[in-house]
């Protein structure tokens, strides 16, 4: 895992090598083991390396075919062993044992379509010198990030936004439309980001820059096409097939020349992955967890149960309120977007524990909730749909009481109020976003804290309708359950779960996450799986639970879903150095202009009073603080970014001799 950056002069000219040094310098923490720069004429590629496969031979940027094809690559191609054998049979010769070289040869053999053959997680750029073509690609589900911008006849790309902002000519301003989307969906809708003029390559897309033209093309999309099932034998066969697939997805994700660890959340998904890793890698596997001081969030009992069942050497980091506020500014420096939950902060601490324990790679259970019917929003969708068919039924809405058992505030609601909040109308039932409307409405209420000028700027913006243009053609035919699954997988998964809670907080400590549930074969299997095997009536992850019987402790297998959460608003009042107080002060809020100073002050007062706060209050406070931190660290702190040392002085002798 690594950090990449690069530049292409669109109308000729010579690339600025020093600028590349600053760009890669800004994200050097992603790859502390090695750094390299290639520049020639209009093209420049930079790479910061975290050495995992072929420690000695994997230096980048790498070239083949007499330096006619160059690559800078962040990620892993897990099926590189098989692809390499196949390419050797076709006459390709390899000089290293790295997956990077396989990728170059595969491109040479199959061109841009090579990405369809890859099993992995990637963001890369290949410079095809004879064709003067730059080819960029990002993995199917968006595990690895890739950002780009155009300015003054130059195309710039990088693993993180801060590498682009390290170029003084790239403007730095918050994108209010992006902010509006985050305060609705928790994420921006790709290619939009939280920064004006800076885009992200959407997951499952490739991009070609040739003769000054930029073309973006999807090479993969999540196409949910469930097959029909009949009876018990089919479910058993599918459960077996799923376990076989997961086992192989885990096995190839253990390919590394360094030790591999696994996260244990205490839930079924990560325990399954840790169990499969243990089965394949034996006692080498170590497990890592976050424990919370606040008992509402703590799952250490189940984590310890899993680790003793699997007989792994287990480590955990105990997270307190004051730890969350202490690291929150650094967390936002890494998420590069406002967040409405503090949950990335404990994962930032967890990645640090992993790194301090001498590990660079961890396997985790991400993706199972989206693909196999784990989230409560799928249950909510089914219940609302069932109720919506008989809106006057007096007992159907009683099922709403079964939702979100882990949210006490919701559990104590009377039925009348639950019915209002989880409303169903005939029009909504047939609409494209039936599943997510109550959630987006609730999140959208955080916008009451936007300032008058922000609201004026967004007067004609409607985040929800902006999604309409981004849906696949088959979407309209899908059931509300499948639509919900698509919305979770396409937006929240890459934009928040794999980003703010994934790549960004792990790579802050040079730790690479690997996700067997997101192996594209597992994803394809899930896409064909009938919805009633994902969630049988209201039984979440039905088939997965059936598939892993005996593999993990029974108490964890049948445990009700407990989503990973962390203490939110309250944490920010445990600070020691006063930065939150400064950032949320009316003077500072007024100066930034994004939020309303009076309303923000009233919100802060509500938290300080110790009175009960709502879900919306917590999202609003976390959103305001993280946005203000983004302004503080990136806009006000821009000087620091540009003042980072260029990494040219750390170029290895190998790259120096090659250039």
């Amino acid at each position, binding site marked *: 895992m690594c950090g990449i950056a690069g530049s292409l002069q669109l109308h000729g000219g010579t690339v600025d090598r020093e600028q590349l040094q600053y760009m890669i310098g800004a994200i050097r923490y992603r790859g502390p083991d090695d750094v390299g720069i290639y520049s020639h004429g209009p093209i420049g590629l930079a790479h910061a390396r975290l050495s995992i496969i072929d420690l000695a031979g994997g230096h980048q940027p790498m070239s083949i075919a007499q330096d006619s094809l160059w690559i800078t690559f962040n990620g892993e191609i897990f099926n590189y062993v098989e692809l390499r054998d196949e390419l050797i049979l076709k006459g390709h010769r390899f000089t290293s044992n790295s997956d990077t070289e396989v990728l170059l040869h595969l491109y040479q053999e199959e061109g841009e379509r090579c990405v369809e053959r890859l099993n992995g997680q990637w963001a890369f750029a290949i410079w095809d010198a004879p064709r003067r073509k730059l080819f960029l690609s990002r993995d199917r589900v968006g595990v690895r990030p890739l950002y780009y911008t155009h300015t003054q006849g130059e195309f710039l790309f990088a693993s993180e936004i801060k590498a682009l902002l390290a170029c003084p000519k790239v403007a730095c301003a918050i994108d209010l439309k992006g902010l509006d989307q985050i305060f609705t969906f928790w994420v921006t809708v790709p290619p939009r980001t939280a920064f004006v003029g800076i885009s992200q390559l959407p997951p499952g897309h490739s991009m070609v820059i040739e003769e000054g033209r930029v073309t973006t093309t999807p090479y993969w999309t999540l196409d949910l096409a469930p097959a029909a099932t009949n009876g018990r034998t089919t479910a058993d066969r599918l459960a077996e097939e799923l376990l076989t697939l997961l086992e192989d997805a885990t096995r190839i994700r253990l390919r590394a020349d360094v030790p591999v660890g696994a996260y244990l959340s205490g839930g079924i998904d990560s325990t399954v992955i840790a169990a499969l890793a243990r089965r394949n890698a034996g006692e080498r596997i170590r497990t890592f967890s976050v424990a919370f001081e606040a008992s509402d969030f703590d799952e250490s009992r189940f984590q310890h149960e899993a680790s003793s069942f699997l007989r792994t050497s287990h480590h955990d980091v105990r997270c307190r309120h004051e730890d969350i506020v202490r690291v929150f500014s650094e967390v936002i420096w890494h998420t590069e977007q406002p967040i409405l939950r503090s949950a990335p902060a404990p994962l930032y601490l967890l990645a640090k524990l992993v790194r301090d324990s001498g590990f660079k790679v961890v396997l985790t259970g991400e993706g199972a909730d989206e693909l196999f019917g784990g989230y409560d929003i799928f249950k909510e969708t089914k219940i609302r749909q069932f109720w919506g068919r008989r809106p006057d039924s007096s007992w159907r809405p009683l099922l709403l009481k079964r939702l979100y058992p882990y949210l006490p505030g919701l559990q104590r609601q009377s039925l009348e*109020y639950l019915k209002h909040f989880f409303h169903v109308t005939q029009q909504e039932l047939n609409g494209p976003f039936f599943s997510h409307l109550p959630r987006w409405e609730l999140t959208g209420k955080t916008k009451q804290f936007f300032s008058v000028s922000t609201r004026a700027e967004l007067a004609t913006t409607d985040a929800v309708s902006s999604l309409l243009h981004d849906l696949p053609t088959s979407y309209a035919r899908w059931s509300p359950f499948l639509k919900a699954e698509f919305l979770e997988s396409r937006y929240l998964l890459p934009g928040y779960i794999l980003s703010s809670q994934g790549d960004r907080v792990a790579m802050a400590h040079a730790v690479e996450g690997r996700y067997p549930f997101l192996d594209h074969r597992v994803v394809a299997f899930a896409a064909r799986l009938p919805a009633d095997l994902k969630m049988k009536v209201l039984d979440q992850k039905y088939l997965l639970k059936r598939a892993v019987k005996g593999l993990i402790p029974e108490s964890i297998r049948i445990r009700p879903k407990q989503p990973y959460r962390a203490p939110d608003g309250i944490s920010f009042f445990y600070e020691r150095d006063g930065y939150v107080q400064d950032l949320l002060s009316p003077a500072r809020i007024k100066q930034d202009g994004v939020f309303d100073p009076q309303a923000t002050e009233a919100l802060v007062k509500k938290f300080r009073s110790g009175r009960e706060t*709502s*879900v919306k209050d917590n999202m609003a406070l976390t959103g305001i603080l993280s946005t203000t931190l983004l302004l503080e660290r990136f806009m006000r702190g821009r000087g620091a970014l540009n003042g980072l040392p260029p990494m040219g002085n750390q170029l290895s002798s190998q790259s120096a001799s090659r250039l």
Partner: protein
Amino acid sequence: MLQTIRKFVIDNYLFGEEGKLGNEDSFMETGIIDSTGILELVRFLESTYGIKVEDEELIPDNLDSVSKIVSFIQAKQSALTREDDNILFQPLEKLPT
């Protein structure tokens, strides 16, 4: 009472935007109170007015506007007073100890 309740709603749900709140405005229709907010309101009413809101009383008819809350509290308080009054007419051995 009306002013106290108004102030609570303005401070806790509208965050100071006083002009937006009519006494008859439905909290649900205007989106003033979100899914977990109603419990904050109940806690406030219970501690401020010394009443106990029963689960079956957690309905919009009682709590969905400033005016409805005022009527609800007044009804609860007068019921409480009646209970107290009744005590005076009960035989001494039936009084709670």
